[in-house]
């Protein structure tokens, strides 16, 4: 088993353990801080996607993506773990796997929502001759998701290596620590962006073209 997979499994275990621990303490009365945080996120996602998102995979997808990436991001700054637990997001296998799972779920949700014929018909909107562009857009989405996260993590790792090499040894630990804190914040931001983009793709897949692309529909008349 390689280091990336070990780190991913550990991050996944952390997400599951924290989630199970929180879910066992759930009360219908006055919620604690942890429960309130979970409920706030659930409400935010459901409000974003509308009430029909309550039973769908959108909420688990967003929470799993953010939780997994945040846990993996946090793990790499734990002292002593950097040698045997590399940042999973700096491995293209991980980012592509997350993007692939997201895209599979999004397309599955779209097929469930519109039926297979309706799902295919969406590629012909607003005009049939835009189908190649729509297909290209769908093909680019997983690449965008995967490469944005990978690029950010790769750049973070590269900067840490550069700081270690280029900064004079007396101040290197301080510079390293400062950059690690900054990189940690960037990692959380990237986790949030990944989850948010996944949600946006989900929303676009289950909402009508009129809702998802209002600007495109303005003044264009009826579609094919």
């Amino acid at each position: 088993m390689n280091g990336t997979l070990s780190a991913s499994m550990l991050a996944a275990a952390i997400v599951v353990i924290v989630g199970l621990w929180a879910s066992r303490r759930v009360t219908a009365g006055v919620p604690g801080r942890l429960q309130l945080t979970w409920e706030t996120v659930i409400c935010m996602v459901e409000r974003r996607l509308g009430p029909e998102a309550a039973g769908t995979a959108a909420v688990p997808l967003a929470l799993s993506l953010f939780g997994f990436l945040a846990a993996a991001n946090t793990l790499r700054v734990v002292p002593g773990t950097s040698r045997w637990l590399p940042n999973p997001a700096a491995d293209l296998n991980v980012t592509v796997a997350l993007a692939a799972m997201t895209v599979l779920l999004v397309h599955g949700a779209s097929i469930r929502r519109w039926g297979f014929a309706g799902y295919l018909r969406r590629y012909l909107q607003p005009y049939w001759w835009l189908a190649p562009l729509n297909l290209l857009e769908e093909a680019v989405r997983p690449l965008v998701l995967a490469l944005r996260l990978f690029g950010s993590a790769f750049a973070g790792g590269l900067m840490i290596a550069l700081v270690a090499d280029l900064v004079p040894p007396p101040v290197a630990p301080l510079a390293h620590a400062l950059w690690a804190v900054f990189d940690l914040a960037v990692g959380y931001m990237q986790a949030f962006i990944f989850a948010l983009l996944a949600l946006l793709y989900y929303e676009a897949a289950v909402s009508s073209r009129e809702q998802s692309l209002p600007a495109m529909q303005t003044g264009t008349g009826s579609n094919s």
Partner: protein
Amino acid sequence: MNEFDTSFQVDATLIAEMIVFGIVLVLMSKVILPPFRKAMAERQAQIERSIAATAEAEERLAAADAEYERHVDDAHRQARKILGVYEDIGRQVLSEARERAGAARPSGGDYGADPLKVKVHDSGGE
């Protein structure tokens, strides 16, 4: 330069990562999130019950207020009626007393205009 771990190669790890994340996703949707949803639904139901109970209590309060006003109005009406009756009785008693006083007044004496007043004055003087 120091080495840092990164990989540009997509290999079988991709499948393993998808399985790992898939497990997280399934546990999240089937085990972790349902208790939160259930608690939120219960709390929502509690809030809706409280709102309904509040509305019902407000209706009962309004009805009680109206009943109270009705009783107060009735009481005022009855009081005015009773007062009217006893004012009539009082006037009648006074009138009879004046008549009796007028009849009992001795002739030739100057007792003033009000015979009742004179009589009272006289009895006090004794």
